[in-house]
């Protein structure tokens, strides 16, 4: 740590100049013989705070792993910073994690714009940006430009394609109205929908966008209804999804609803049902890749039993919230990657590990789903099933399919 000579130009207003910077340490940041420090940003408050359990579920799983000896006797410390879903705060908080807390890697940071904002910085610094909590295609696609970045969940374009294909096949006379968030996330789902509809893309009678910073989507829903749509696509985050159900009921409008996976958690649907009535949410369709803790099918499933015991022991919040399950799944994958990265993990070896995943035993994913990556295939999760909301809960139907 060679501290250089500080020379200063003292004239008022002149820039002082300092030479000398701390030399780069040879040890891997964030890794000691007994601990490993990672961190990420999660909207604990603000418009997208419904996603906070994505971080809290992961944190609970790490505590469980730590109490069972950690990984190679290292305890995992997972620092969560609140960025309020504001990309400028994501940058600051991420810098803080890297430069002040000296994290080994950024893990599970949430949001498309948010992670795009920090990606150039993290890649320039050579800090792994692991399992980005966003379904944008860019995390898996653009690895040549951004080698230190990888996503996790099924991507939005593929999800939209599935809905499009399903509609084209099962209801080719639909009149589709789309509500979508006017950013990368909403646009990718919309593009996927068009791709899936193929020649039937003209079934879309109205597209209404909203802004993540808007207060409500009342006028958008009214316009969809006015366009005589009988099918509504909700490519929106939880708050706006609930509003969409609510406003359509107020307008006396009951379309067939397709709700994207980021808002189809049972607790969100429960709120939407309570805010309206059973008929409004009945028959909604979504995709699923996680075990839903409210689904009675999994009542005696070892994965959900483990989930419940972790939630109980580490005082998790909202145990019926499927985003907790998501958090545990991504944490499980990180632990598996860390085991693969060897006894003395480095940033290079963890990147190698996360791009050579083949995890069959994730207890939180639907049976049969494999977390698989290769150096050129960087979509860890690319399998899902369709599900239908019936009598207040999701029922999956059809087989497991690969979404691309």
């Amino acid at each position: 740590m060679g501290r250089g000579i500080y020379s200063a130009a003292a004239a008022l207003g002149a820039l002082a100049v300092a030479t000398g910077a701390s030399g780069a340490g040879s040890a891997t940041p964030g890794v000691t013989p007994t601990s490993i420090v990672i961190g990420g940003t999660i909207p604990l408050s603000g418009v997208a705070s419904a996603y906070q359990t994505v971080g809290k579920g992961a944190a609970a799983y790490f505590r469980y792993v730590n109490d069972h000896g950690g990984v190679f006797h290292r305890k995992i410390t997972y620092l969560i910073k609140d960025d309020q879903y504001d990309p400028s705060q994501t940058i600051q908080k991420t810098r803080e994690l890297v430069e002040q807390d000296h994290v080994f890697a950024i893990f599970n940071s949430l949001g498309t714009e948010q992670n795009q904002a920090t990606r150039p910085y993290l890649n320039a610094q050579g800090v792994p940006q692991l399992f980005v909590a966003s379904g944008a295609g860019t995390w898996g696609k653009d690895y040549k430009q951004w080698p230190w970045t990888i996503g996790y969940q099924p991507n939005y374009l593929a999800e939209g394609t599935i809905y499009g294909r399903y509609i084209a096949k099962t209801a080719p006379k639909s009149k589709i109205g789309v509500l979508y968030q006017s950013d990368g996330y909403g646009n990718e789902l919309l593009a996927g929908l068009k791709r899936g509809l193929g020649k039937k893309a003209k079934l879309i009678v109205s597209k209404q966008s909203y802004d993540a910073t808007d207060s409500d989507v009342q006028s958008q829903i009214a316009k969809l209804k006015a366009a005589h749509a009988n099918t509504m696509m909700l490519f929106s985050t939880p708050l706006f999804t609930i509003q969409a159900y609510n406003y359509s009921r107020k307008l006396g409008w009951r379309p067939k609803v397709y709700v994207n996976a980021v808002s189809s958690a049972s607790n969100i649907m429960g709120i939407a049902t309570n805010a309206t009535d059973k008929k409004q949410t009945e028959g909604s369709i979504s995709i699923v890749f996680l075990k839903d803790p409210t689904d009675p099918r999994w009542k005696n499933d070892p994965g959900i039993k483990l989930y419940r015991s972790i939630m109980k022991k580490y005082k998790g919040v909202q145990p019926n919230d499927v985003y907790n399950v998501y958090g545990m799944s991504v944490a499980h994958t990180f632990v598996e990657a860390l085991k693969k990265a060897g006894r003395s993990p480095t940033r290079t070896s963890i990147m190698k590990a996360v791009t050579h995943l083949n995890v069959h035993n994730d207890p939180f994913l639907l049976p049969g789903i494999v977390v698989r990556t290769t150096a050129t295939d960087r979509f860890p999760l690319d399998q899902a099933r369709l599900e239908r909301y019936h009598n207040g809960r999701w029922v999956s139907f059809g087989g497991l399919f690969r979404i691309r």
Partner: protein
Amino acid sequence: MRRALGMSLWVAMVSAGLAVFLFLPHFVSDFHSRDLAQAGAFFIAIIGLDLLTGYTGQISLGHGALMAIGGYTTAALIVHEHWRDVWTIPLAGIAAGIVGFVVGLPALRLSGLYLALATFALAVAMPSLIKKFSGLTGGSQGLQFLESSPSQVTGLSGKVTVFGHTMTQNHFLYYLTWSIGIVGLGVAWLVVRGRGGRTFRSVRDSEIAAVSSGVNLAWTKTFAFALSGVYAGVAGALYAIQTEIVNPLSFTVSISILLLVGAVVGGLGSLSGLVLGALFVEYLPTLSTHVSTREGVPDFIYGAAIIVVMILLPTGAGGLLRRLARPLTTWLYTRP
């Protein structure tokens, strides 16, 4: 004799302040100098607000909007015109100064609370206005300039070379911001110490008395608004350069209120305590989360701290400094 002593004390204090400015980054972590740089941006905006609200008596709850003008000017010039980031700062100041001048026009008819509400409306409307002109401003996604221009002074390398000396980016931002801040403080001092300051204060204390003494009310008010806007614009530009991104969420109503809090804590109508006001605004939110991160607790502590400061220091940090120094100044400047 005592005058000479007073002068040398004054010089000593200024040099001590400069020494703190020069060497502070070397006593804190590299990342921390980035926090300090952000406090510096607040400092500049607060000086401007103090000139307007503290000296001229025009309450503004819309300074966040003026900062937004500065920040977006900088971002747009970098992203669309590929300017070097530091050279956009003067232009950002001028742009916000012009907007400040225009905002000052209603101030000729409105006063007190009504003016505060009018400026507040500007702050509330600004995020929507920004989204409206999405071609220029990037809409709700904002403009990010880290990616688009790797040759920038605050580029990705983490190092900046100025006049042949290389320093870390965080140190550079600190020195850049606080150098401008010190120049800004000097300019403000020159403005308020003589006739200008008397004019400002006369408008604040009684408009009728000021007019009957020959003060041009319209000119004084709009000039104060424009000058204050220049400070806010420069602050907004620096803030944007530090965060490397601007979006509508960067400049919300809360930043306008935060600046007023900073000016009040620093001491309205004096310049000496404004640094403390800026540090208060920068660090209290973080400090309050250290007490407890439970929901609502940091906000509560933050609010309570402001109330406590207001009860104990009704004239702000500037007033406290004045009170502490009074025995000394009285001794120095009264003839025996």
